[in-house]
């Protein structure tokens, strides 16, 4: 999609009269969307713009599956109204890969097998990206703290932490390595 292309979405069966037309900047693209003021950014990303990489887990700020970057900082899209994102840059998991090339963080998640069902993965990638952009060489403790707002029911977190450490180019004090990892 070229960046000057503007697309108007509206939900079927709902009058657009009461909706606000807003412009959102998502992954560098500009989108014009009709929204109700009470729609969350998560709802608009998924249901209106069909960027479904961002997941809905709890919808109350506890699981982090809905994490997106707002001006480079990780936030929960389920606690943010879509109208609040006007004038800000939103990055979703779809925006991490550039020109068909995965973000190094995504590469390391693959290498380490830092996922099982994968439902939590977009959220983890976003909060880890937010961390590394601010702090390129985080300690393991800093990584675990930065990822504390993301829940994973499958992996036990260890491989996720190692994938992030590895992305930052730091040694991994570990009894196993990615190649032994299955």
């Amino acid at each position, binding site marked *: 999609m070229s960046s000057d292309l503007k697309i108007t979405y509206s939900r079927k069966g709902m009058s657009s009269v009461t909706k606000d037309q807003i412009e959102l900047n998502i992954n560098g693209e500009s989108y014009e969307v009709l929204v109700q*003021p009470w729609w969350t950014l998560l709802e608009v990303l998924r249901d209106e713009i069909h960027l479904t990489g961002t997941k809905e887990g709890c919808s109350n*700020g506890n699981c982090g599956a809905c994490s997106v970057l707002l001006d480079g900082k*990780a936030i929960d899209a*389920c606690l*943010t*109204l879509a109208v*609040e994102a006007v004038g800000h840059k939103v990055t979703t998991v779809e925006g991490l890969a550039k020109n068909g090339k995965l973000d190094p963080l995504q590469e390391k998640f693959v290498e380490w097998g830092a996922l099982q069902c994968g439902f939590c993965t977009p959220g983890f990638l976003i909060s880890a990206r937010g961390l590394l952009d601010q702090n390129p060489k985080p300690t393991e403790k800093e990584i675990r*703290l*930065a990822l504390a707002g993301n829940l994973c029911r499958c992996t036990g977190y260890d491989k996720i932490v190692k994938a992030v450490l590895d992305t930052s180019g730091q040694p991994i004090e570990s009894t196993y390595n990615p190649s032994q990892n299955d």
Partner: protein
Amino acid sequence: MNSFTYESPKSLQEATSLLSQQSGVIRPLVGGSDLIDQLRTNRKQADLVMDIKSIPETTSMEFDANGALHLGSAVSCADTYANPTVRSQFTAIAESCELIGSIQIQNRASAGGNVCNSSPSADTIPALLVHDAIAVIASAKGLREIALNEFFTGPGKNVLETGEFLVKLVIPNPSANSASHYLRFIPREEMDIAVAGAASFVTVDSSGTCLQARIALAAVAPTPIRAYEAEKVLTGKIITEDLIDEAGVTAAASAKPISDVRGSADYRKQLVKVLTKRTLQKCLRTLK
């Protein structure tokens, strides 16, 4: 979510005129980490959500000529604890902002929202109380100030009246040789609500005599409270380990906790004793 309209006023005046003209329930919005879920689950209603993140007075964090911290009600927890002066001079406040939720929450949520939500377990409130914070409140009639100490009236309740909102918190410059710390107890390492919390603020003179002590507690009464009797134990004396023990016991006696899923009343009193002692010990270590 039930329907509401949304406004994002660009000035204090715009905000207060909105508040005075509109009928129905108007709810200020900062991080939404309390409000959005409360609206979604129908625990709160709103006819108008007023986003206060575009108002210069609420979004700024400044130090005045006297060194007092003017913390806008829409400044995020992350921006608050990232400030080096807040960390060194207003340590308990930085520590409490750093405990709230996750990074995702801290990047949006504010101490102002924590105060206005007025939960008995709110982490920033004891820290703000021991720092003698003042709430600056705006309405169409102008500004008024109230000591934060007198702000809370019950669980989730405060003195804000219809047509009013919190502009900022003003926190006096601590005198030389002061230190403050906040600690809470949660069963997990992160992302949990305090079973109990304690903040201490101590000022000593060159001989080590305690000139001033303030202690405040979270989650052990219908509102966050000061533990005045425990403060008196320390004031005017050289702070020894025995005195710290006594202050802990006295603070526990002033707590009026309930028993609930997070802990029994007795357990909470024990926690107050331990947390008060630890914050005081930490203050002494900082002052060394």
